[in-house]
């Protein structure tokens, strides 16, 4: 295969895998922010917590990688409910600033706790044999782990799309994002709906955190380092929009990968340039309401 096409395919493939990670981790944040307008800077901390649960299960208890991912998302999802009921709900009517401060405080505490128990050195995770090495897709080899990410991401998108567009609960969520007061007055319990979506969103973030270990390694600073990217995906996609979050994850994932392939020195510059360009033209993001 010619060199240029080869690089283009690599960029698309890696970009797609990266986009799946971004989507899985950010989608919960987008829906909860759309529902309550709550700026949750501790979302990255939930992802980090998921990652460390996976590390503990695989390293200390010898659990397989895939089951530990499931356990991590369930555990973190359940724990997040405690935070939501206890702390977050007190601030739904507060200003952006107070929400930013509370959640950044939680993120700091999470980072410190993780450093205390796991140390600052990045952790890795043992993968099952079928996720290591490369997979042959007919015309060339691709890393198996990234192929797995793309398949898993696509499956999750299908499930989320079905739940969002075709089920009763999805209709309720969309109604509440569109107009919270109206949804409440027709008898939808938005409070409970929010707790549910918050738990699912945090669980997905934990799943994303577990998946990210193999890609970037897991250190306590994960909670803040990648948070910026999740927030950018949410802002560029538009609050509470599944479609928007997916589109934003794809655009940013591919642009970031292309930037790192073609102009390694420029680093993260491209992501931010794209973000600024999109937000200047469409301040509410791709599918957000102005």
């Amino acid at each position: 295969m010619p060199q240029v096409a080869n690089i283009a395919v690599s960029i698309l493939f890696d970009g797609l895998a990266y986009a799946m990670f971004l989507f899985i981790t950010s989608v919960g944040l987008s829906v909860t922010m759309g529902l309550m307008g709550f700026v949750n800077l501790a979302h990255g901390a939930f992802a980090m917590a998921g990652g460390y649960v996976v590390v503990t299960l695989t390293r200390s208890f010898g659990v397989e990688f895939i089951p530990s991912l499931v356990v991590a998302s369930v555990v973190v999802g359940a724990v997040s409910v405690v935070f939501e009921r206890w702390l977050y709900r007190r601030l739904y009517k507060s200003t952006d600033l107070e929400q930013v401060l509370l959640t950044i405080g939680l993120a700091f505490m999470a980072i410190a706790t993780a450093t205390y128990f796991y140390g600052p050195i990045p952790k890795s995770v043992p993968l099952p044999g079928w996720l290591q090495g490369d997979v042959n897709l007919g015309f060339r080899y691709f890393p198996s782990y990234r192929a797995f990410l793309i398949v898993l991401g696509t499956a999750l998108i299908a499930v989320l799309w079905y739940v969002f567009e075709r089920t009763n609960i999805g209709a309720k969520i969309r109604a509440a994002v569109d107009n919270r007061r109206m949804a409440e007055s027709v008898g939808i319990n938005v409070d409970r709906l929010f707790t549910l979506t918050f738990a699912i969103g945090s669980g997905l973030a934990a799943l994303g955190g577990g998946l990210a270990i193999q890609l970037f390694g897991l250190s306590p600073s994960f909670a803040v380092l990648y948070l910026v990217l999740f927030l950018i995906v949410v802002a560029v996609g538009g609050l509470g929009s599944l479609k928007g979050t997916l589109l934003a994850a794809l655009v940013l994932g591919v642009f970031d990968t292309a930037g790192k392939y073609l102009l390694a020195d420029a680093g993260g510059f491209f992501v931010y340039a794209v973000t600024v360009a999109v937000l200047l033209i469409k301040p509410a993001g791709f599918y957000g309401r102005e």
Partner: protein
Amino acid sequence: MAASDIITTTSRGQARERTAEYLVGRHRFRPAEALPWLIAIAVFFIFPERMTFGSQVLVMAMFALSLDLILGYAGIVTLGHAAFFGVGAYTVGLAAARLQWAEPISGLFAAAITAGLVGFITGWFLLRYRGLTLLMLTLATAIMLQETGNLRSDISGGYDGLPGLAFKPLLGIFDYDLYGRAYYLYVLAVLAVVFYFVRRIVYSPFGQALTGIRENVRRMHAIGSPVHRRLVTVYTIAAAIAGVAGALFTQTNAYVTLTVFDFDNSAKVMVMLILGGTGRLYGAFIGATVYMVLEDYFSKLSPTFWQFGIGLVLVLAVLFARRGVLGLFESVGKYVAERKRS
């Protein structure tokens, strides 16, 4: 002005006079305001060997003061204020390292101008947005500046920074001594000038308009206030002050690295301001001092413990003391006064 005064005032002219008096009286210097400055001078004599640390506290106080202007008074929530601090820091750093322009005081003016310019340009574009969009755009601005610096590491020195900068003696007389005593007084003097300037702004009609924008932007639009122009103006001023703080940071440390643009730096100054109390000028001083002293003490014991502690303090502050340390004092003062009356 107590409530009874309003009731007894019958004629309209009298009422207007009283209001004018009240407004003028508000920005008269109170004796208590001398206290932080006296403490700062006392510190100079009590801890002569800790003057480098002292200068850093003053620099952060100035940085927090500039944030107070836009966050506390105009209500602009930003996550990228470190951008201007960094621009100022690199203006004097690059001037000294690459252009051999090492005169400190003129460096401050240069830093104010470049940072103010960056503030004006970005503010012009960004201040039309609010909420999450604004948070993300300000954050992205700071990171893009950092990445630009990293891209041209042949000029900026990259993440290794510009070490060992040599600045000329202050006013041609006072050289950089071992404990940075001359620099402490220099930073304190600059802070006093900046503070006087900020104080004038806050109590001016322009400052009142900013408070109006913070409290109810729709009403300000409705009464015909040029909201965008006011916001861009104050953003530019705050950027210039943050630039001066950054320049002083470089001058007192004699080095600068790209970490000045970090998100951590933006978050840190916000935490300081919130701890001290927003929208009340001296909150910046108290917040910066409390934060820096605690950090200095606890991070020596254990950086992890410190980070957990500052997180906990933030959570508790949001839940129980939303107006910062100064706000807490005020509440206690009010409570005591009420108890006395009854």
